[in-house]
């Protein structure tokens, strides 16, 4: 409610920014349910390489996606310093393993630049745009594209 109200007054939206490797990304804060420390995950058989496994989130089974691996970068070697962003994608919850959460940004829609014309279709499919803030480049991520949805529809 308060976020929505704020959006109305400022005409902006709030994003959570985080670091994966040496790059910065952000997601809509409305999708984020909580941020917690890394706990060892139970590996899943036949899972894609970027799915680290599942953890217990107060009784629910939460899959953990290594965002770095998911975005085609080096697979993370999770340590206690890593952070899990618990996000809601439609009716499902997913934990995103990231290096660190940096800040909360309030941006106007017109501050979000379209994704640069890059070669990889794959990056285009999850990037929703880029932000230029104080010389940093932050990529806005489409959560639905990050989470492997298709196979659940097929299964």
């Amino acid at each position, binding site marked *: 409610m308060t976020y929505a109200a704020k959006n109305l007054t400022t005409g902006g939206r709030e994003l959570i920014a985080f670091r994966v490797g040496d790059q910065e990304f952000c997601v809509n804060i409305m999708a984020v349910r909580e941020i917690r420390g890394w706990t060892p995950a139970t*590996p899943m058989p036949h899972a894609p390489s970027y799915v680290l496994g599942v953890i217990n989130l107060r009784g629910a089974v939460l899959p953990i996606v290594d965002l770095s691996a998911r975005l085609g970068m080096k697979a993370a070697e999770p340590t206690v310093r890593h952070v899990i962003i618990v996000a809601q994608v439609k009716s499902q919850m997913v934990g995103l393993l990231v290096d660190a959460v940096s800040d909360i940004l309030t941006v106007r829609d017109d501050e979000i630049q379209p994704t640069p014309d890059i070669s990889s279709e794959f990056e285009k499919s999850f990037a929703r745009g880029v932000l230029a803030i104080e010389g940093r480049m932050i990529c806005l991520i489409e959560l639905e594209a990050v989470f492997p949805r298709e196979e659940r529809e097929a299964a």
Partner: protein
Amino acid sequence: MDMNEIKEIFFQECEEQLAELESGLLKLNDGDRDPETVNAVFRAVHSIKGGAGAFGLDDLVSFAHVFETTLDCVRSNRLEPNQDVLKVMLKSADVLADLTNAARDGGSVDQARSRQLIKELEALANGELPQASPAEPAPRGAAPTPAPVVAPPVNEEGFQPVAFSFEDFEADEPALIEGTCYEIVFRPKSELYAKGNDATLLLRDLSRLGEMSIHCDTDGLPPLDRMNPEEAYFSWKISLKTDKGEDAVRSVFEFAEWDCDLDIALACGGAVDASEELPMQPVPFDLSLLDEAAAGSAEEEEQIATRDRDAAVSAAETASNVLQMAQSSNRAPVEAQRNAAAAQQAASAATPTIRVDLDRVDRLINLVGELVINQAMLSQSVIENDTNGTSSINMGLEELQQLTREIQDSVMAIRAQPVKPVFQRMSRIVREIADMTGKSVRLVTEGENTEVDKTVIDKLAEPLTHMIRNAVDHGLETPEKRLAAGKSAEGTVRLTAKHRSGRIVIELADDGAGINREKVRQKAIDNDLIAADANLSDEEIDNLIFHAGFSTADKISDISGRGVGMDVVKRSIQALGGRINISSKPGQGSVFTMSLPLTLAVLDGMVVTVANQTLVVPLTAIVETLQPEASAIHSFGASQRLISIRNSFCPLVDVGRILNFRATQANPVEGVALLVESEGGGQRALMVDAIQGQRQVVIKSLEANYTHVPGIAAATILGDGRVALILDVDAIVAASRGQSLKPEMSLAAAG
């Protein structure tokens, strides 16, 4: 509580009443003649009517009213609930359900169907039973209902004896059966025309009942200058010879009866003048029926003589309160009787129940799951930190453990429900499809009290509906073909539910022609699913029907072939974490077997270690555990290994390898073998590294946040708070047979 909530409760109750209604009718259909069953059916319709009235749901009320009237005839033994009657009633129950749903969700109903059924119901209530008229009435009237039924035999069969009496008059045999003659005087009042009725149309309807001659009485017609165009001056004298009953004649005037003077009198064929005498003819016969009940016989005689409807009703009222034609003027006795019936039911069984929002139960179940996990964590840390075991803590923990388990069991039991309602819904589907396809089908259900979690029940209906449709439409042959094949004309569809290995197994079997493998094969070749020269086993061919876009129907019929095939069924079952198998024998039918998990239930499991991972194997699947000795392990071919157990050889399956937890097979001698029995009946020795112990675990859905994982049934949370996977033994065994356990993940490759 606002109006909407009350309405919601009403609809919930309706659902129960409809289920009650259907199960009661089905019981009657199976030959149950317990008056309480009839009462229950009646009560169900009556309650729906009552509630619907309160909410002003007129369509529902009017249909329920007609239905109730007919049921009342059954209740008071005036209508024999035979197969034909029940067929109409079951259909009416379907329509009632449709009307209820429409009232709740605002959908529309097949108006023509409900009108048709109203007609059929009314016809039944009026005694126009195809079977009841020719031969049956006499023995029925005499034998089973001697004392209490006074008026009914007269009302319903009064005209019948006339046919017998004709023997004396005419030797003409056919006329004896066909021709009951009526002298009808029809004198419309002006109201009749004011209400938009047309005497001509009524007369035309009447003429359809049989041979008719009409004489128009124009005597009342005033001179032109004194004529009021809105008045009614004509009346008609009609002689009608018909094989239909008097009620059929009356029903022609049904909508006009208050707006006209109507005299219907019995007459013989043409001998109009003798009509005064003839009605007396049956009296001796009738008296034999009525002897035992002297009360009201005077009224009855009068009734027979006058044939006046009003008189009949009032006579019936005084004679016996059994005759309650659900005419609204006559409420009190109905009420009394109903109360008595309700009291009787209350005395006989009925455990009190409450209605609870499903969300609340879910919340409770989650909390209890958490409690169980926390209790396990506590136990574990106490054991780990145990310094010389302070016994009070240990005892307290043990009690806590027991309590938690009891709470858990009770909470789980709240959600568990018998599959009965879904099975009952299927009987409707069978009826409808049988009607559409002109096949005669009997649905046999077994194990309908098998309990399974509500969530599973809810999701079961859709795939089952589809499969039942297929079974009747594709599976069963037409009655002619069945007879030609030496089977009974009536096909049987059998729906069974049972528990097995901590899962619910639902089987749908038909005794139809079985899968036409040639056709399936050809179709698969046409659709490029298989190569023209592919060598497929029978099972492989059968399983082709699960491919998308595959339909064995020659043409797209109303029932199936809407582009929704067995592939959708398979997918929805898989989405539930279940599996579906088919086995078919040409000429003998097909069996579809679905195995579904009891989600959210608790499971007794064996906690094992495989490749440093903790897994849970459902205890129900395990036959025995053993420590393999090197001498018992035999290599078989390149990679297979067998273990000899009491001189029989059982394939070894390395769980760690098959789940891709390790690249090479572990040395069996270093592990433990779990001998399991799979659904297909085959035994396998599952190799795990070590057994940690037995534990009751709470099943957590993997699908909720992730996806179905082949070989894994679900997840659970162990005492240390970590997630452990529950093995899907059947899938592992199937995978070991060579079927693929590959994940269906498209993006796995892309990522």
